[in-house]
């Protein structure tokens, strides 16, 4: 039986057209993009084309794109690169403003910077997982060098008011970064409309290969390199270019641009059908995230009385792949930091699943997943002492408030 893959926020399958574009560069076309001979020039031209394709999807100039090893490196580069360039003057440590619901690529980098003496403010979110621009306004001070707020959250899909926050950052002369890894290919991403100076993206979330991404750096932005080395990427990122991956990323961005409007509408329709089916057929569920300001492919659902991983394993047995929180936190025992920031009790945050649809998701898959889910939730609930107590009237439906 085929697998139903509803975990596109973790990663997407390589599009066959992307693979096709990459193939020559994995084999015959092996030149180093820095070499002057013809194999080198062939590689250089391929990288230049990919740079244009990536830039075009986000409304940037090709020269503003720096290829990185992925979204994580782009986030590291943005945060560490900006803070490294802050003049160590006036005795005041540099200040970074970010949010409580960022991906670990940003949060753990911010924590590392904090240990090195940088001051960091973590903006809270409302119950839908949205940062309030007014909170950003009050957090920014004269020492604020960088504001970093993600475009869309990977766990609940909530889309952040990045343009509004960027406008405030600009007024206060702070550099604005957004982690747009989950937004790319799912919602329109335009660096000027957003008003950002730095923007992180990753190929494997847009049907491209893993291990390649980019940092958009607006012309004139003060930022140090993260990786020192050769003169590649205009000295902003040392290391021989990963030509096949860059070529794949370029092609993936080109496809994403062509398919964006259609696939977003289709995925939203299927996602809404899944959401409605769950609400109708399963009791004691909560839909997490913003009702409208949400990635079209993402559905995060809390199932009361049960724990997420046991649901995930049972769905896996039935050949349905979903995730609990983000893939990075699987195996992590703590409840999701995103749901906790949204004000959930730890116990409620434990029993959530994330369904993330993709280009190839079909209506039949939605119907199958609904049937399987009804069965699996009933099975796991039958095992739950909390559910027993609830059925026997010994426990309220909602997890008790502290």
């Amino acid at each position, binding site marked *: 039986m085929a697998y139903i893959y509803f975990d596109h926020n973790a990663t997407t399958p390589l599009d066959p057209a992307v693979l096709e574009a990459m193939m020559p560069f994995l084999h015959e076309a092996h030149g180093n993009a820095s070499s002057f001979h013809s194999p080198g020039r062939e590689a250089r031209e391929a990288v230049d084309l990919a740079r244009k394709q990536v830039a075009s999807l986000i409304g940037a100039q090709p020269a503003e794109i720096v290829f990185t090893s992925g979204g994580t490196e782009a986030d590291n580069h943005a945060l560490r690169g900006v803070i490294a360039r802050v003049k160590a003057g006036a005795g005041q440590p540099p200040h970074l403003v970010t949010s409580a619901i960022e991906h*670990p690529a940003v*949060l*753990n980098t911010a*924590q590392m910077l904090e240990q090195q003496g940088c001051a960091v403010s973590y903006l809270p979110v409302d119950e839908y997982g949205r940062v309030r621009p007014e909170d950003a306004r009050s957090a920014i001070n004269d020492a604020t060098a960088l504001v970093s707020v993600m475009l869309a959250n990977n766990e609940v899909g909530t889309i952040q008011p990045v343009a509004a926050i960027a406008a405030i950052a600009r007024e206060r002369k702070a550099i604005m970064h957004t982690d747009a890894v989950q937004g790319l290919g799912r919602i329109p991403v335009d660096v000027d409309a957003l008003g950002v100076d730095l923007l992180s993206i990753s190929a494997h979330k847009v049907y491209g290969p893993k291990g390649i991404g980019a940092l958009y750096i607006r012309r004139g932005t003060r930022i140090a390199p993260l990786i020192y080395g050769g003169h590649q990427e205009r000295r902003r990122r040392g290391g021989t270019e990963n030509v096949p991956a860059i070529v794949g990323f370029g092609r993936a961005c080109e496809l994403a641009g062509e398919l964006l409007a259609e696939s977003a509408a289709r995925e939203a329709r299927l996602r809404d059908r899944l959401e409605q089916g769950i609400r109708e057929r399963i009791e004691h569920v909560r839909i997490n995230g913003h009702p409208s300001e949400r990635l079209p492919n993402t559905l995060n659902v809390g199932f009361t*009385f*049960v*724990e997420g*991983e*046991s649901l*995930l*394993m*049972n769905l896996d*047995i039935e050949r349905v792949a979903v995730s609990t929180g983000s893939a*990075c*936190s*699987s*195996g*992590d*025992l*703590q*409840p*999701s*930091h995103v749901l*906790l920031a949204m004000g959930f*009790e*730890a*116990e409620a945050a*434990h029993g959530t699943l994330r369904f993330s649809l993709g280009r190839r998701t079909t209506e039949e898959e939605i119907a199958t997943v609904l049937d399987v889910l009804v069965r699996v939730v009933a099975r796991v609930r*039958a*095992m*739950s*002492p*909390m559910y*027993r107590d609830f059925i026997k009237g010994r426990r309220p439906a909602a997890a*008790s408030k*502290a």
Partner: protein
Amino acid sequence: MEPYTEKVMDHIRNPRNVGEIDDPDGVGEIGNPICGDVMRLYIKVEDNRITDAKFQTFGCGAAIAVSSMLTELVIGKTIEDALRLSNRAVAEALDGLPPVKMHCSALGEDALRAAIRDYMAKQGQQLCVCGELDCPCRPECEERERTRERAHAAAHGIEVEAPEDSPATAGGSTN
């Protein structure tokens, strides 16, 4: 995280002895202090031998496999032998657990102890929380147990009337 073994998957797919015993001789309910998961174990005892065991568990896949395997292992055992069953032994019977999931096996051992303690109390016998029948250091063992329960409450984000020395903070992760 490392994948689960085939045995673990088998018990997740097909858990044994799920449910409750209507008229149990002992019930133990334990919360895992590390993750907040909960296991409840019911036992039936005849002539000092566990004749039936059933469980209900709110927890991860490993917790469910541990609960299921534990019931299989204890049925037929005398109380003394059951008390000697360690979480290591349950994990080994499952062909091992991923390192981050080793703590899940504690849920089984602790729930079993609690169920036996409950059974003993009904017989007018006092089993120390450490598992010893005539434990000389009972107060210390009980204090350790209270600390554990507070940690469990903390994992749930529940504020308990904690003594000054133990801050009951919810473990919010940053990744």
